[in-house]
């Protein structure tokens, strides 16, 4: 292997092309680094911080850090998994994530990554925010209780669909997903079931109507195999439709 074009991830040699990030190269080599706001079809974002890895004593997000020859990158270590676990727990208490009552359970990336990093309880005090459900669209429903602000729908609608259906509004803990339409409702927006933005949500926030339980619980994407084997929700869209 040409060492001039590779770095080491937990001791494993990972080749890379110039311009690739640590995440790009790891995924291409079949090495899993847990992540939520990253989707290879879209520009790296770096907001969820779940993909943090240690390089030279510092934590950096693998999805935004450029790959460089000879780097020693630590990912699957107890302290990094503990950091990821705490970040996952923060996401869980920030919104209203009730897995047993969510139709996405078993095919949800938040849940699957939480299992992967060994998160067994939410740990922090729940915020229990009051958020709405928007069922105004004929084909899709948005449950804002489950939004994790990854901005995948924002970016997909803007960069892949050319529609700007979604945006992030507010600041700090009051940040929230909003919809571009006269009423602010999805039903009055340009959103369509065929949009890429309809198929990138990693959690149960943007869901197709009807057929919620066509795949029984227990036989869903991450019920069968861990996320480190099968990858993202978006990449499995066809199979994962639950």
């Amino acid at each position: 292997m040409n060492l001039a074009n590779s770095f080491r991830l937990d001791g494993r040699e990972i080749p890379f092309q110039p311009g690739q990030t640590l995440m790009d190269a790891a995924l291409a080599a079949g090495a899993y680094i847990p992540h939520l706001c990253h989707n290879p079809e879209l520009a790296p974002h770096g907001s969820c911080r779940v993909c943090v890895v240690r390089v030279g004593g510092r934590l950096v997000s693998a999805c935004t850090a450029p790959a460089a020859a000879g780097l020693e990158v630590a990912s699957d270590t107890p302290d990094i998994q503990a950091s990821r676990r705490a970040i996952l727990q923060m996401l869980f208490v920030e919104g209203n994530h009730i897995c047993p009552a969510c139709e996405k359970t078993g095919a949800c990336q938040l849940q699957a990554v939480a299992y992967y990093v060994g998160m067994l309880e939410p740990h922090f005090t729940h915020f229990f925010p009051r958020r709405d459900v928007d069922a105004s669209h004929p084909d899709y429903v948005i449950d804002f209780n489950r939004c994790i602000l990854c901005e995948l729908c924002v970016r997909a609608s803007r960069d892949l669909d050319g529609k700007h259906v979604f945006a992030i509004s507010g600041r700090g803990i009051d940040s929230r997903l909003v919809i571009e339409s006269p009423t602010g409702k999805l039903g009055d927006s340009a959103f369509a079931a065929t949009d890429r933005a309809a198929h990138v949500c990693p959690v149960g926030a943007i869901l197709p109507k009807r057929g919620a339980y066509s795949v029984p619980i227990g036989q869903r994407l991450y019920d069968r195999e861990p996320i480190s084997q099968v990858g993202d929700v978006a990449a499995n869209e066809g199979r994962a439709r639950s």
Partner: protein
Amino acid sequence: MPLSSHDTVKRMVTGLLTARGHEPDLLLQHLIAIQLAYSYVPEIAVEVLSSVLGVTRSRIRACVDFYAFLHARPRGDYDVLFSDNITDRMAGSEALRQQLTKRLGVRLDQTRGDGRVTVSLTSCTGMCDQGPAMLVNGLAVTALTPKRIERIGELVEAGVPLEHWPAKFFVVEDHIHRAGDLLSNAEKMSAGLQRFLDLGPQAALGELEASVLRGRGGAGFTTALKWRICRDSPGDERFVVCNADEGEPGTFKDRVLLARYPDLVFKGMTLCAGIIGARKGYLYLRGEYRHMLPRLEWVLSRRREQGLLGWDICGQPGFDFDIEIHLGAGAYVCGEESALIESLEGKRGVVRKRPPYPVVSGFQGRPTVVNNVETFLAAARIVEWGGHWFRGEGTQQSAGSKILSVSGDVARPGIYEYPFGTPVSRVLEDCGGTGAQAVQVSGAAGVTLAPSEFSRTLSFEDLPTSGSFMVLGPDRDLMDMTRNFARFFAHESCGFCTPCRVGNRLLEALVEKVAAGKASAYDLEEMRQIGNLMRQASYCGLGTTAANHVRDILDKFPDTFQRRLRPGSDFTPAFDLDAALAAARAITGRNDAGAHLEEA
């Protein structure tokens, strides 16, 4: 204020667009003007801006929601914001706020029924040397006393327009108590560019290199290197941006520099433009300093008349450069250079992904130099008097002097300039900070020093500082400070990344739990763990420094928290079962022992 009719608002916004421009970058500037005219941003204004600027409605509303000084619903005719820095609180701002809300019969954050007035709190307004302070419709009112508050109450009730309020209410003093190399005789220094033109851009950059000037915003990147990289980065256009968004609690020296030496700051920006090849510059002035806008605009127009700005500056063909002032609208995070650039482009101030750095891809994706006010002022002096002159002071890694904003429990709050390498104890002696129990250096995001550390020196080697220097006297309770900072960061986090967005709110709740006497040792360990995660995993400097104050209190002033812990309790749940019964007690009108849970 009566809600203005659609047509009036439409006319106003259309006029605004015609007067200032149709570029999407101007969105925030238009929103600020609309807010000022109507006390909110009416929906019809959003419609007009959206169609003319080609920006989606949701993005405009998102902008309104992001900035603390913009509102989607009407504020009062008098929009009163009390500065809520710890130094304001130490000077009695809370009692004054209560006096005013009582006098006016209004509750915090709620516009009075007749629409006359709204009273709220806001982050540090940069008047720490003359607080308590407030903003009324965006203009600074300083040196508040019970008497002044009483008078303000009368003026508001009588509906007296701000321009007829006593002029002394709006006086902002400079308070320069110690002038060093930069500040002494600064007025006498040439505001012109002759020396720069004699040297030429290459030699001028050489002087900056010889000076080893490092950025005065706190991070300390070498200024000459920044300018060189920007000059050498490919781009059809380059920009110079002066960061006058000094939002770090306790700092106000940029306010004084812009009030006293605006020509030197603009001169610094102009020679930067000459060196990197920029034709356009921006001064990003924090909204809290709007009172300075008319004078700064006047200085710019005078410099244009003098041939120091505009086309063919000083008769040099092709030396074209002009400066435009953009206002901020209440967002601490915009002090970070890439968030500032987002804000300059009229967007929410969210920090950009790096690389690329602004010197390579900044404003409008072009190479951009962003420097602090003080950095440009120092650069102007260095080009005038030479790099070796500047290098003559300071330490190995910290050349020159640093301008400090000193406030808190001191006899003489104000501006002090010292050579780098000066110990904290020397500053305390000079300003009259007798018996200080702690000094907060570099603001809320900085470091809390205990007396045993007062021999440490202000320098990049030891205590890098943006200039904020807040002194806590012997009788202060540091709990008040840490509560104030925790609230500040929870309010100012931009919300982009998880550890900062959620972590700051968790920290704030835990600090409040300690303050209420309900916490256990477990909660202190929680605070430390959350702080560690924020420091390591956050996306930008706001998140990585926001928990510093909690760590410093835990390490250096543990008694502040320890003496408030609930006795004999290893763990106290966040959920208070007895408090949760309050609603049931209120409904049933009971408050007997049987309506309360027994203490465990």
